[in-house]
């Protein structure tokens, strides 16, 4: 297996032992900060006083090496509000710990983790927006997904959905009002988006320009907020949630997203997945990854080349082949709804040989096509002029913002959940994690293109395996009860490597057949946070290129 990576020695961190994490040592490290313990399915939770959050996070980061704040989940109980900081290590994401911060119902107020992890900025704003927890010392605590004039916090139990949201025009901030920043008459305020050819959906960048240079950029998201978390909280584990992950990152990455839910729910309910189904999952997920990366490449070319570039159509044409394969397998081209808890919905389409033939043809044609892209894109001198050393994202900054996926790997961070937190059939296969050290737009494009090759390698091996698989052992689903009711108060946070990075799901059960809290940790949400770091001080075209290289899908950012 080529998956062994030279792990940086984490043994000098507190709590790291041969057998895994020693939570007692971590508890000692936190000392009197800990007021209680909780047990989540794959991580121990330390309950911390709301006014000492930053200290606890800081100790875990500095001394125990938890440098990745994966997600911040806010939720409501009958007697309290709670923020959970899911911490991991970039070096080894199987080492996880949760920092649980309960706050009172009357005045939900806790300290911000923003001084330790920059990524907490947006996550806490989201928690404030949807749940109404106030974070002290937060630099910029305002609503993020909902309009700033929204009344109430919609994920609270006592939220009145019927309450009218009447907002007078006067109250609404007029984005056109300010022409320049404060007294500085040399700058100009420009709204890039929400309707702009290059924002890949409805993203609004509040940009302050100094001539052609970007002086400040503030992404304004939420235009595509569809209450996905709440919809999942109202749907049953067994069937109804599965169609929705397709609609988060809706650009062909459906099966990857479904896998995130499947993995979390299977852990929550303790379901086994037959090996044969794992192979099919792995194969179809990698097909999705190829489709998603091809589209990322095509749209990035649109951003850098202009609207008439042929590259976009070529990548669409090649993506079409993958989509046909996926359609044959799943019955749909984008909204697959193919995975089921405990397996997949269908076996491979009959006749199997024909399907294998098609997949092999696709894999055989792929190198020539990628060569074409290298001629058109990465080999082009003007493209290099545009992309090398623009949109630089230093590894430290990327880690602090919780960047994952090709964005992190383009900054030289060797982090891929498929290998580091193995699931599916990945550990049995021979493939490599692609990293580039350039930290710039060019590296991110290169990472995606190389990942297409790696995915093709994985698919090829899966096809070989499936072809050899004995007919009597082709079990596509394990035995799963018709109604799933996980034990009361079980909590799980699980992530998979989706097309854009770490897609995590946090679920808490309350003994019914629907989750009490369903939180989506979207990779695009965290990745988009790095945009101001990347583009401040650069030119407008670099801002657009950086945005394109982040490859965000607003459906996943806003959920």
């Amino acid at each position, binding site marked *: 297996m080529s998956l062994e990576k030279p792990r940086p020695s984490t043994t000098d961190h507190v709590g790291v032992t041969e057998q895994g994490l020693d939570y007692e040592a971590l508890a000692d490290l936190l000392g009197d900060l800990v007021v209680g313990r909780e047990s989540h399915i794959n991580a121990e939770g330390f309950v911390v006083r709301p006014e000492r959050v930053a200290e606890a996070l800081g100790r875990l980061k500095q001394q125990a090496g938890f440098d990745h704040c994966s997600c911040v989940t806010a939720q409501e109980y009958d007697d309290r509000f709670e923020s959970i900081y899911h911490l991991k290590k970039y070096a080894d994401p199987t080492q996880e710990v949760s920092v649980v911060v309960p706050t009172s119902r009357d005045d939900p107020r806790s300290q911000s983790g923003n001084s330790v992890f920059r990524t907490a900025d947006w996550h806490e704003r989201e928690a404030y927006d949807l749940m109404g927890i106030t974070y002290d010392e937060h630099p910029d605590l305002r609503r993020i997904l909902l309009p700033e004039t929204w009344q109430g916090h919609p994920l609270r139990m006592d939220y009145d959905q019927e309450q009218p949201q009447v907002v007078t025009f006067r109250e609404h901030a007029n984005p056109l009002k300010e022409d320049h920043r404060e007294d500085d008459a040399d700058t100009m305020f420009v709204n890039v988006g929400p309707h702009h050819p290059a924002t890949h959906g409805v993203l609004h960048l509040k940009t302050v320009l100094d001539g052609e240079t970007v002086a400040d950029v503030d992404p304004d998201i939420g235009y595509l907020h569809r209450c996905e978390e709440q919809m999942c909280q109202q749907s049953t584990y067994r069937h109804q949630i599965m169609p929705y992950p397709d609609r988060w990152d809706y650009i062909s990455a459906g099966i990857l997203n479904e896998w995130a839910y499947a993995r979390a729910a299977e852990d929550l309910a303790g379901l086994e997945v037959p090996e044969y189904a794992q192979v099919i999952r792995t194969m179809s997920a990698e097909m999705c990854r190829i489709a998603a990366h091809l589209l990322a490449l095509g749209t990035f070319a649109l951003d850098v*080349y202009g609207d008439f570039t042929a590259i976009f159509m070529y990548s669409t044409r090649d993506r079409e082949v993958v989509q046909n394969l996926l359609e044959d397998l799943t019955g749909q081209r984008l909204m697959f709804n193919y995975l089921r808890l405990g397996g997949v919905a269908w076996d491979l389409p009959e006749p199997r040989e024909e399907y294998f033939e098609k997949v092999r043809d696709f894999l055989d044609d792929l190198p020539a096509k990628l060569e074409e892209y290298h001629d058109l894109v990465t080999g082009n001198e*003007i493209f290099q002029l545009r992309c090398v050393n623009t949109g630089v994202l230093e590894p430290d900054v990327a880690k602090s913002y919780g960047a994952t996926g090709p964005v992190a790997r383009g900054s030289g961070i060797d982090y891929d959940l498929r290998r580091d937190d193995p699931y599916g059939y990945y550990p049995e296969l021979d493939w490599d994690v692609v990293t580039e050290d350039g930290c710039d737009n060019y590296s991110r494009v290169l990472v995606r293109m190389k990942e297409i090759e790696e995915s093709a390698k994985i698919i090829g091996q899966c096809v070989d395996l499936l072809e050899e698989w004995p007919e009597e052992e082709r079990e596509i689903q394990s035995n799963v009860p018709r109604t799933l009711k996980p034990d009361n108060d079980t909590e799980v946070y699980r992530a998979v490597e989706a097309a854009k990075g770490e897609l995590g799901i946090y679920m808490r059960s309350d003994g019914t057949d629907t989750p009490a809290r369903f939180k989506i940790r979207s990779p695009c949400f965290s990745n988009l946070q790095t945009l101001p770091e990347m583009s401040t001080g650069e030119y407008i075209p670099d801002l657009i290129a950086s945005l394109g290289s982040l490859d965000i899908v607003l459906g996943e950012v806003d959920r």
Partner: protein
Amino acid sequence: MNWGLLQQANNSTNGSGNGTNATNASGGMGGGEVQTLPDTLASLLGLGDGPLVTFVMGIVAAGLVASFLLTLVAVSGIWGKRKITAAFTDRIAVNRHGPFGLLIIVADAVRLLSKELIVPDGADRPAYDIAPIIMVSSALLGFAVIPMGSGIQLADPEAGLVYVFAVASIASVGLVTAGYASNNKFSFLGGLRAVAQNIAYEIPLVVTAASVVIFAGSLRMSEIVAAQSATLVSLGPVSIPAWYAFVNPFAFVLFVAANLAEVGRNPFDVPEAPTEIVAGWQTEYSSVYFVLCYLSEFIHIFLGGAIIATLFLGGPAGPGPEALGFVWFVLKMLAVYLFTQWARSAVPRVRIDQLIEIGWKGMLVLSFANLLLTAVIVGVAF
């Protein structure tokens, strides 16, 4: 017919300045005066030679040329562009309306003209309206002195080349006017970019053209064409003419590149840069005004093509009888147009600072080097 009048005014001053436009063999052999289109029309209709006749015939001839150009733009801009882009991107493109989808031109014209004309709040009104007209007329005016073969040339002033560059660069005024009058920040940025770009690339363009002038020894368009009719090398039955593209390929490449910047096409389409600043200076133009902007862009491309054809590709020269000259000329223009579309399909857009840098630090230096080199060669060899 604003441009017609302007052309005519220009035309008549030429006529009086040069004295009589004596009849001469059309096609422009030798260094003498060529017969211009108004004169031909006058003599065909049996009208005499007077200021009024020259005036009327000038308007008629200008109208003919302008109509032809607008037709060319309609065909190549509305229909051809789609077909060409589709070919590069493996698509089919328009094929439902009429033969080869050609009637899409009518449909598109109706569609564009029937759209609502939206004037943004706070637009600087007269300037906002004038800007597209300035741009279209500047491009059309340039064609007044282009020898298009088969005797089609409206005027042949002595300083023809200078005239072409002068009127073509009036478009910059239109661009900046459109940019600031639209009361839109994207337009404003686009206008500023357009001016910065035009200034940066106009100089290399003109300096490179000057190297041709050194070869030809004249600024008169017909003479530049005539100077290219000699044979450079004979390879058996095939003789390669002394087109300046063959004589001085370096200048040709330089000129073509600078021309891409001048007409604002990839890799130099930063004034519009749809993914960056929406549509640049034309963001706020709709309906008829948008049609004018669109027209001006295409006519500018064709004017660029016409200049390239005249300066470097032997003008209307080509195999077959001289009467076919016009066909060859249009083909050369279309080839340049095709090249711009080709570049669009595969060449990334440079950043604005890189664009300016390439212009001032690269192109300018190279064009002066080319000029010096040409001067030395011409001085030594001839």
